[in-house]
């Protein structure tokens, strides 16, 4: 039974660690391949992140927040112009 437990533990370690390495190695290879292919065949994307953030923020700020901000700006301007 105890030998059995050792055997099981060693099995787990060897095949487990092996799988982790094989899988992540495969992932490294595929990722590099993917990036290369994407960049070669579809070209570079100019500043994709910035574009993305803009859309997102424009999209998810609710009209209410915008209304409040505009109101605040107006209020401020009114005060300021006095």
């Amino acid at each position, binding site marked *: 039974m105890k030998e059995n*437990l050792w055997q099981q533990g060693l099995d787990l370690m060897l095949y*487990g660690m092996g799988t*982790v390495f094989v899988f*992540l190695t495969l992932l*490294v290879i595929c990722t590099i391949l993917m*990036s290369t292919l*994407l960049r070669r065949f579809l070209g570079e994307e100019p500043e994709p992140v910035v574009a993305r953030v803009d859309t997102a923020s424009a999209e998810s700020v609710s009209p209410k927040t915008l209304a409040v901000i505009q109101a605040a700006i107006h209020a401020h301007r009114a005060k300021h112009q006095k």
Partner: protein
Amino acid sequence: MGNLLGLWQASGLYQMHVGQFVMILICLLLLFLAIRKGFEPLLLVPIGFGGILANIPGAGLALPAVENALAAGDPTVLAGLAELLGLGAWDSAKDIYNAYQSAGPAAHKLTALYAAEAGYHNGMLYNFYSVAIATGAAPLIIFMGVGAMTDFGPLLANPKTLFLGAAAQFGIFATIIGAVFLSANGIMDFSIADAAAIGIIGGADGPTAIYVSSKLAPDLLGAIAVAAYSYMALVPLIQPPIMRALTSEKERKIEMTQLRTVGRREKIFFPMLLLILVALVLPDAAPLLGMFCFGNLMRECGVVDRLSETTQHSLINITTIFLGLSVGSKLAADKFLDPKTMGILLLGIVAFGIGTAMGVLMAKLMNKFSKQKINPLIGSAGVSAVPMAARVSNKVGQEANPHNFLLMHAMGPNVAGVIGSAVAAGVMISMVTGMLQ
């Protein structure tokens, strides 16, 4: 008079066992660490609070209806339960309890119906646990949320850092051997399933640890989750000495070139690629990595921002609350106050240490074969513990060289560690289930 006596006997003070008292103190300590010391408060506040609730004497909040019936001790009900569990009517409540623990789903269903018939109910936390953890749903939903919060940019800019995330998982498997050693020498009594569940602490990833232990060793879940989250909070104390011991001053000073910007398309394709690889190579990791990739795809694809938003906020918050309370239900004294818990805590910290060391050593090994040197300090981030471990890499790096900004570089192995431990979790669940059948 009988009523006054009844009230006193119903009070917590009268019914409290020493174990419950100790557990309440331990849970208060967890809350203190979470609130004052900032130890992973999002999880440890619900876990600690749930732990107190689970140890309220007489309330049975963490118990199923059958155990509440056993605790009440009505002789007729005991006899009925004994019969359903194949015991004689004269067996003690303790015997019935043990028989219930080792019974299968069918016997559980029958006895639960019998207890309901006799007017006993599942405790609140037991219900939460059944829905949130026993089904596997809550850890998987959290994993989806983590996916929706993860930016794979740094990993995509430097995919080789995946090797660091792989190496650091050795902490998991070394710990399994440690648990086997303790068990083989009669110091503890861990089964192979227990050993695997304990090992996953070394993955330094909370939901993964909870998911694995709910499948392989539900009784140890409380201790394993507490160990995992506590050590994740202690990463700034555990890792730096190991990192310094294994690296030279010169190595720590290595500056890394700025990462290239990663396009949106790569970020969309990556979760798909990962999913396909899982499907082809490692179906056992499909639940964890599938939900992780799904969350990340929602984040990156740009057309379901409202779903991604909800996943990152309402949904993950709601799930965290119930996950935490459910984990707390496993801090009941009779399960937690066990020599095994000491073993788990001990093995857990060893796992963190070995994982850290292997990450650093792997980085040094890679430097032997690669022209583009990497600073070995980012290897320690491979254990996961996102984003704490990456911050530790950055901090130790700046101590050696104030111009060294390792944070983004360390995020690569950091998220690689999440993938790595999910892979390890999949393999282990599958292999251990095979061993037990």
